[in-house]
């Protein structure tokens, strides 16, 4: 008799860990594959009611820097009946070893093939990791298309900021988790545990889970297209919701109590104790996906943050903490929090860092207060060169703010600074490019004035320039991206004007940005191109040295995908978008008004300063704004 390894009888299987040593003796940075870090959890998956794998489609050093992984890991493993383990994309040398020795992708904790878990959940941060997801499935010996996966395979799910337009990945993923995952992940595991016990088939389990709030099961949505390629209508099957509304989590204090960060044994990108002090941002920058999808602002209680840091430092031994959020200086109690931290931490010599500083002198004051590391310098994002264009994108900073900020930076002893600018924004003109040049020149002048002569040689002005890439669910979802050849011309122009030896330009690849733009607003048909691109060898597409525009354009061609139709086309006002099935809570009408105001250069204030401006969130949650 053949016993099929179904979800139900998986627990009866004889699960044997994989011997990883023949693999890792031959690869670079083997430490990323060994697991066993401080605070990681080992449970017997056979004894758990349901098991899950958290999969991060990039290297360990990047995935372990993501707070989402740590948060979900804690929540699930703190639940007695459930277990979660981790897996990351192996680097190319490891992949080669695994394929040669025919070893499937395995979890870090138990070193079991990831195929053996009930649920495989991908954390999708951005579009350029799509091919890595297919590659991980393939390395795990799991068919990439949902329709080809029988009962013996795990349920494949995905969440994170990259799933708010789920369509390009919809044929590969059984269901998407939209919005905050903290609460819903337990509901999902409970359902799986209960139903597999009752002998439900996988498709039935998925259908049942589809009834939970914030779950999008692509199988139950049909997309009909016009002859010109635009969407005609979306048909919803059965009783599934027309719009899946994202989940919003508010009970941070709840999991904070038992949060234990895993401490990597090897260096990762953000090698410090990260605390999310606030989720969401209400500034309303019109290009920003994060701003749109993480609304409304939810602040963590200061007391609970202080406690979390105290316990966290004791159980990790970290020497640095980072207070993270989309805009940390907007945290209402930031002054109080930092003063307290300074006092509490003065004996233990722990450094504090504040990422995502607003470009104003207040931020520099805070950075001074915490004694932020001088070596690494400070980072700010003026985004545009002129006030006019800053009004278009609704970035609430004035030129004076920028210069005062820069003056404060150099006069308080920093010698390095990094500034972010965008090009190709809607309504951009030559004056806006000249504006970037004049801001940078002014920064240089300020530095010359403020920095003592004997330290001048250390001054470094890093400038990051990236092409604007329109994203779903933002006021700019209607906008066509500027063509790579235009963008490249603009870049050449900027280069020709910025010649100082103190200026270090870093320019984001315009072609990579175009591929990102196709995927970001792609529909279900784009999935074919992703599959072909992966088959032709695309992976680690966000890594400049691995990205291949040629492979992507070939894949688009083969899949009959017109790049410009998706990336560069201006959408009609009433066009149906592929992500219409997903709701961030914002009204389409609100986004559209924002878009029209943008074109007129009109700004919209932050709702925390002027009161609710009815973006739509008020219908699903009580925003806690104090004016």
């Amino acid at each position, binding site marked *: 008799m053949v016993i099929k390894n179904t979800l139900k009888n998986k627990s009866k299987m004889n699960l044997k860990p994989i011997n990883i040593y023949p693999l890792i003796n031959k690869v670079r940075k*083997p*430490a990323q594959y060994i697991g*066993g870090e401080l605070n990681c959890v080992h449970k017997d998956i056979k004894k758990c009611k349901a098991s899950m794998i958290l999969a991060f489609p990039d290297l360990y050093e990047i995935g372990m820097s993501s707070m989402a992984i740590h948060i979900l890991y804690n929540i699930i493993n703190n639940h007695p009946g459930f277990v979660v383990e981790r897996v990351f994309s192996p680097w190319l040398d490891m992949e080669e070893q695994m394929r040669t020795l025919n070893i499937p992708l395995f979890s870090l904790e138990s070193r079991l093939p990831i195929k053996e878990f009930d649920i495989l959940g991908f954390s999708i941060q951005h579009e350029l990791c799509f091919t890595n997801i297919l590659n991980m499935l393939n390395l795990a010996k799991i068919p990439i298309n949902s329709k080809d996966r029988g009962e013996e395979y795990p349920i494949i799910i995905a969440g994170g900021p990259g799933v708010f337009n789920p369509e390009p990945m919809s044929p590969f993923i059984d269901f998407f988790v939209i919005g905050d995952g903290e609460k819903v992940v337990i509901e999902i595991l409970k359902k799986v545990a209960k139903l597999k016990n009752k002998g439900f088939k996988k498709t039935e389990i998925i259908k049942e889970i589809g009834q939970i709030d914030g779950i999008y099961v692509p199988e139950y949505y049909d997309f009909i297209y016009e002859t010109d390629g635009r969407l005609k209508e979306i048909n919803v099957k059965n009783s599934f919701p027309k719009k899946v509304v994202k989940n919003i989590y508010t009970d941070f204090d709840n999991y904070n109590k038992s949060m234990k960060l895993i401490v990597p*044994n090897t*260096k990762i990108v953000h090698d410090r104790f990260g605390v999310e002090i606030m989720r969401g941002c209400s500034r309303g920058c019109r290009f920003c996906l994060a701003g749109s999808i993480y609304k409304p602002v939810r602040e963590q209680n200061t007391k609970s943050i202080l406690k979390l840091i105290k316990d966290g430092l004791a159980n990790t*031994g*970290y020497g640095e903490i980072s207070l993270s959020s989309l805009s940390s200086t907007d945290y209402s109690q930031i002054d109080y929090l930092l003063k307290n931290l300074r006092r509490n931490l003065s004996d233990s010599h722990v450094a504090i860092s504040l990422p995502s500083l607003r470009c104003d002198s207040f931020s520099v004051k805070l950075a001074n207060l915490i004694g932020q590391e001088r070596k690494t310098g400070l980072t700010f994002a003026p985004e545009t060169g002129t006030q006019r264009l800053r009004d278009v994108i609704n970035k609430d900073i004035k030129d004076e703010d920028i210069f005062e900020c820069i003056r404060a930076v150099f006069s308080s002893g920093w010698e390095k600074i990094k500034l972010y600018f965008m090009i190709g924004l809607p309504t951009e003109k030559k004056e806006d490019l000249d504006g970037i040049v004049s801001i940078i020149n002014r920064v240089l002048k300020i530095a010359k004035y403020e920095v003592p002569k004997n330290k001048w040689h250390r001054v470094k002005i890093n400038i990051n320039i990236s092409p604007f890439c329109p994203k779903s669910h933002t006021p700019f979802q209607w906008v066509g991206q500027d063509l790579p050849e235009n963008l490249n011309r603009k870049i050449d122009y900027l280069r020709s004007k910025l010649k100082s030896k103190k200026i270090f330009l870093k320019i984001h690849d315009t072609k990579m940005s175009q591929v990102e733009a196709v995927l970001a607003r792609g529909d279900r048909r784009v999935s074919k191109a992703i599959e072909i691109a992966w088959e032709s060898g695309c992976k680690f597409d966000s890594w400049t040295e691995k990205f291949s525009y040629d492979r992507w354009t070939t894949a688009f061609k083969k899949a009959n995908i017109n790049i410009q139709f998706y990336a560069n086309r201006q959408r009609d006002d009433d066009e149906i978008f592929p992500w219409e099935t997903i709701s961030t809570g914002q009204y389409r009408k609100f986004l559209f008004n924002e878009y029209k105001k943008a074109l007129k250069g009109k700004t919209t204030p932050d709702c925390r300063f002027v009161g609710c401006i009815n973006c739509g969130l008020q219908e699903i949650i009580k925003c806690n704004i104090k004016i």
Partner: protein
Amino acid sequence: MVRNINKIIMRFRFSKQNDIKYISHLDLITLLIRALRRAKIPIHYSRGYHPKLKLSTAFALKVGWESIGEYADIVLKKKLLPDLFKERLNNQLPEGVEILKAICGSSSKSLSNQINCAKYQITLSHYHKKKELEKIKKVQYFRERLFNIKIRELNNNILILNFLTPIGSGNDLDINDFIKFLNSIKNELRFILKRVLRVNMYRKEGDFLLSPFSLLK
């Protein structure tokens, strides 16, 4: 380099084995520092805008090699019983890293200035006679770099080599070179390096081997 004169130094010997052998030297230092913080050892921090603690080690071990003879110095704020230090730190260390011995004292020289010699045990698989190995004793290059060679043969074509070699003199032995050389003595000879274990480190003065602990004041 810290000038450790009059500073309270805890010198400790530790191991790097099991999976931890796959982490780099820098990662190992970070791991020790975090363990020291968790163990609430009274570490001394340098003064200044960004206080730093100083953990100094001697001679990085290659990723993948094992050791039961690593040494490190940490400057303390106040004296601490070595056994207490050992116990508290061991409670915080992962499997594979273990404090084997600790001594508190002072020293004007750093570990890497004091240590000049290491004892290794390497395991080789081979398909030939031990006799062939005796040849290495005659080659000039190795005569200068290997001392006290002891060769032990296990029955299943496994050879265990114990030797002393200078370290940090610019005249160090490259174990991979050594294997390459072994394989070139006779063409059909095939040695495969199975394991490298650093057994201990010393200060060699003439014929005497001094333990790094004995160099503390």
